[in-house]
């Protein structure tokens, strides 16, 4: 048993003034002293790039690490739809409180109120910051910013840049980072992968990395380490994440003592292109904004083989509009995903493999004209056509849910600090703000809130007492031991000399996780997965084949390390899902549903954050609970009827 007590360090006070008061109460580092501190930021997506740039602007010395060839490649770039903010530019009743309320409710009451309120507050600063950086947000003819409504929201609060909002926001953050690199305030390490965090005297003292071009294993010391390394949807193998997205940084930190929270909270995005064959390497998301103008339907008859144009309206089931008249096609992601799955499972799936539902624009094209539809969704329609060879202006798109985002992640307190002092986690890598389900356009908001406006304040409070404390020497035995461990691990993958490729194992693991810990979970399924994963992992350890060496660019070797960590995480995901005997948000246990098939929460017993402690490779992780209090939002069953 460990002596960890989870203290979220949420200050007392009225939620509306909490953050402002806390900013005043936190310790400051004098501007002239900031240059005496070294901070490491791992990852250069929205959270990492914005944090690294902001910390450098403040005067800290920053080292930024990315395993990509350029910081601009991070997968934040692929976010399509938009970013939420409570600007209320359209006077339709939005406010900080409403964004806060919607986000807590959308997260199915499994997030920390104080964090979410702060997120809603700084959302407005993000839009100001990004507009000033030159992010080309969509505008109205009068020159002011345009908004749209987005999955699960009844106000227009989503700012967007065509269907490439993530790209434009990331380029804004990347450019801010590049400026600091040019000024010499950020040292940039590209094609350099984080492999371990090193703790000395109870505090994060630095990290160990591997240069992907030369294989060189190196230590870097710092006064604080920030992980902005994204989510773990690729545990499912097929997901909308980029090929290289992985859990390794968070997982290695977890193995060193950082608690991992709510690993079973994974989001399955409803509108992705169904897979076309067994060689599919990833799934492509079609922005949720499409649901604003597209209608989701399947044939009323199972096994209908007619083309969509042959099926009259009376033989179509617009099931989301039918079941949820007030939200219709705009119900939150988890609700939409489960409903589409139910339809496909009942034999009403469409397309050559009968594995999708239609998303139909015919009516919108008639109502708005093809030109307006093209203006709104042109790039998405083109992307769809490239992949499927079908023209969505002429026939409905086919969609099916796919893993997309993970709400779980490293446990952090109100300061975004993990249970390892001096180690922070921001963006998708932490668990804090999204609860059990993330609303559309909230991921970009959280990444940038953490990076531009929250971490730069809270990190100072942790650094101030360390003034003039020298860095730990990278020759310290703790660094040397971590380096040796990493080197040995990678040599081990090469030496296994088995018969199966890394991708084969990853694909097999993904099947197990998707089948048993995907959109629907059950006790028998999870128990089955918990038996199958260790067996396959054993095979991975003895039958893996990685060719080449560890002294040059070796992409199979990189992936071997990441898949190794996915195996360990997958087991914890299943355990967490098994332990949580309720349904909430993206976690749907078939044993716990209402008569209408909706998620049934158990607030009395499960209104907590499940934070898992690593206890070693052969002993089960230990569960710690952070109880969630709801003082400002009334706990209710979510209804989108």
């Amino acid at each position, binding site marked *: 048993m460990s002596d960890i007590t989870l203290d979220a360090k949420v200050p007392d006070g009225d939620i509306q003034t909490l953050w402002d008061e806390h900013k005043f109460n936190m310790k400051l580092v004098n501007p002239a002293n900031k240059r005496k501190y070294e901070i490491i930021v791992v990852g250069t997506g929205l959270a990492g790039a914005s944090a690294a740039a902001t910390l450098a602007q403040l005067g800290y010395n920053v080292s930024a690490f990315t395993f*990509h060839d350029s910081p601009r490649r991070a997968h934040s770039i692929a976010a399509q739809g938009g970013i939420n903010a409570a600007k209320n530019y359209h006077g339709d009743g939005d406010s900080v409180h409403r964004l806060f309320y919607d986000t807590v409710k959308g997260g199915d009451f499994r997030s920390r109120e104080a964090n979410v309120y702060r997120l809603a507050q700084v959302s407005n600063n993000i839009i100001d910051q990004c507009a000033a950086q030159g992010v080309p947000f969509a505008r109205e003819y009068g020159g002011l910013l345009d908004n749209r409504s987005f999955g699960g929201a009844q106000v227009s609060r989503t700012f967007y840049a065509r269907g490439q909002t993530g790209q434009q926001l990331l380029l804004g953050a990347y450019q801010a980072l590049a400026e600091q690199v040019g000024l010499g305030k950020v040292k940039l390490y590209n094609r350099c992968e984080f492999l371990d965090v090193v703790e000395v005297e109870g505090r994060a003292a630095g990290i160990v990395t591997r240069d992907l071009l030369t294989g060189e294993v190196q230590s870097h010391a710092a006064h604080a380490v920030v992980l902005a390394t994204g989510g773990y949807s690729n545990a499912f193998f097929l997901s909308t994440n*980029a090929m290289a997205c992985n859990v390794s940084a968070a997982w290695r930190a977890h193995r060193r003592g950082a608690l991992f929270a709510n690993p079973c909270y994974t989001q399955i995005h409803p509108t992705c292109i169904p897979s076309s064959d067994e060689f599919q390497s990833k799934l492509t998301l079609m922005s949720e904004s499409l649901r604003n103008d597209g209608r989701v339907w399947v044939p009323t008859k199972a096994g209908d083989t007619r083309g969509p144009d042959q099926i009259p309206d009376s033989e179509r089931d617009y099931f989301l509009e039918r079941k949820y008249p007030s939200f219709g096609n705009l119900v939150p992601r988890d609700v939409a995903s489960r409903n589409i799955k139910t339809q496909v499972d009942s034999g009403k799936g469409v397309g050559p493999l009968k594995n999708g539902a239609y998303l139909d624009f015919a009516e919108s094209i008639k109502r708005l004209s093809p030109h307006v539809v*093209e203006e709104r969704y042109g790039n998405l329609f083109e992307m769809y056509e490239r992949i499927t060879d079908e023209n969505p202006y002429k026939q409905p798109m086919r969609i099916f849910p796919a893993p997309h985002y993970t709400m779980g992640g490293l446990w952090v307190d109100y300061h975004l600090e993990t249970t390892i002092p001096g180690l922070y986690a921001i963006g998708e890598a932490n668990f804090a703000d999204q609860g059990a389900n993330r609303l559309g356009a909230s991921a970009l908001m959280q990444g940038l809130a953490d990076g531009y406006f929250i971490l730069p304040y809270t990190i100072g409070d942790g650094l101030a007492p360390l003034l003039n404390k020298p860095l730990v020497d990278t020759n310290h035995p703790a660094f040397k031991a971590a380096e040796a461990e990493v080197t040995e691990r990678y040599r081990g993958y090469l030496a296994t000399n088995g018969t199966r490729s890394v991708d084969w194992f990853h694909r097999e693991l993904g099947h197990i996780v998707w089948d048993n810990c995907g959109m629907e979970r059950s006790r028998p399924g999870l128990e089955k997965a918990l038996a199958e994963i260790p067996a396959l992992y054993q095979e991975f350890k003895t039958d893996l*084949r990685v060719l080449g060496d560890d002294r040059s660019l070796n992409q199979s070797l990189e992936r071997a390390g990441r898949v190794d960590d996915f195996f360990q995480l997958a087991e914890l995901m299943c355990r967490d899902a098994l332990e949580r005997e309720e349904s909430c948000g993206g976690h749907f246990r078939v044993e716990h549903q209402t008569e209408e098939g909706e998620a049934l929460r158990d607030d009395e017993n499960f209104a907590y954050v499940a934070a898992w402690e690593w206890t070693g490779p052969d002993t089960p992780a230990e569960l710690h609970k952070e109880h969630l209090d709801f003082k400002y939002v009334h706990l209710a069953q979510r209804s989108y009827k």
Partner: protein
Amino acid sequence: MTATEPLSDSPAPAAPGRTLNLTLRVWRQAGPDAPGAFEDYDAPGISVDMSFLEMLDVVNERLVEQSREPITFDHDCREGICGTCSLMINGRPHGPQRGTATCQLHMRKFADGDTIVIEPWRAEAFPVVRDLAVDRAAFDRIVEAGGYITVNAGSAPDANLIPIPKSVADAAFDAAACIGCGACVAACPNGAAQLFTSAKLAHLNLLPQGQAERYKRTEAMVDTMEELFGSCTNHGECEAACPKEIPIDFIALLNKDYLRAKLKNRRYLSRKP
């Protein structure tokens, strides 16, 4: 692009569900300083619904089965937006389909029996790191020189304070759509980076927020570009190769602003002409 225009200028697409038997002629190079050479690989039974990179995944899996080292290539999002994938396919950056990055190219654009030649980007500023992967850090150097608007976090005014005409925001967006893949440089006989640099310059120089640093930015970025890349002699190959179809017109803007930057007295910038 309009709603009805076909996406490709290649021959008639293969029927769905079919498979192709292909030969790949692939550039293999063990490291930056090692000599490279083409090697041929048979690629039978390739589904027309695969993307080009999925085809390479399959070839790599087969190579590993035969205990031969897989082909190294850069790739990540596979949605045509991150700009990581590259590849000269039959001598064309990103292959035969117009306005399409390699990861979005599908095998239905090829015919049974084809031999496909696959090379890395060829440009002095982009040295090969291994096989088909190159080092494009020179692009980052150009952005670091001035490809930004200086605004420290927290100092921005309300976002609606400066109205921007929709047409201006749209033009800036057209330029900002660049994914930084380097196809323009690979396509250019001189290995010039004018299209990339002009896209970033146009994005920022067209916006009201970008005016304060406009000429300083232009001078710094263009000078850095000239230092690292070849010179533009107006071939226009860059525009044809760009997966985001960024127009060459932005290069004219770059030239104009560079000339102005050399003439403008920075202290009188705010004076209208």
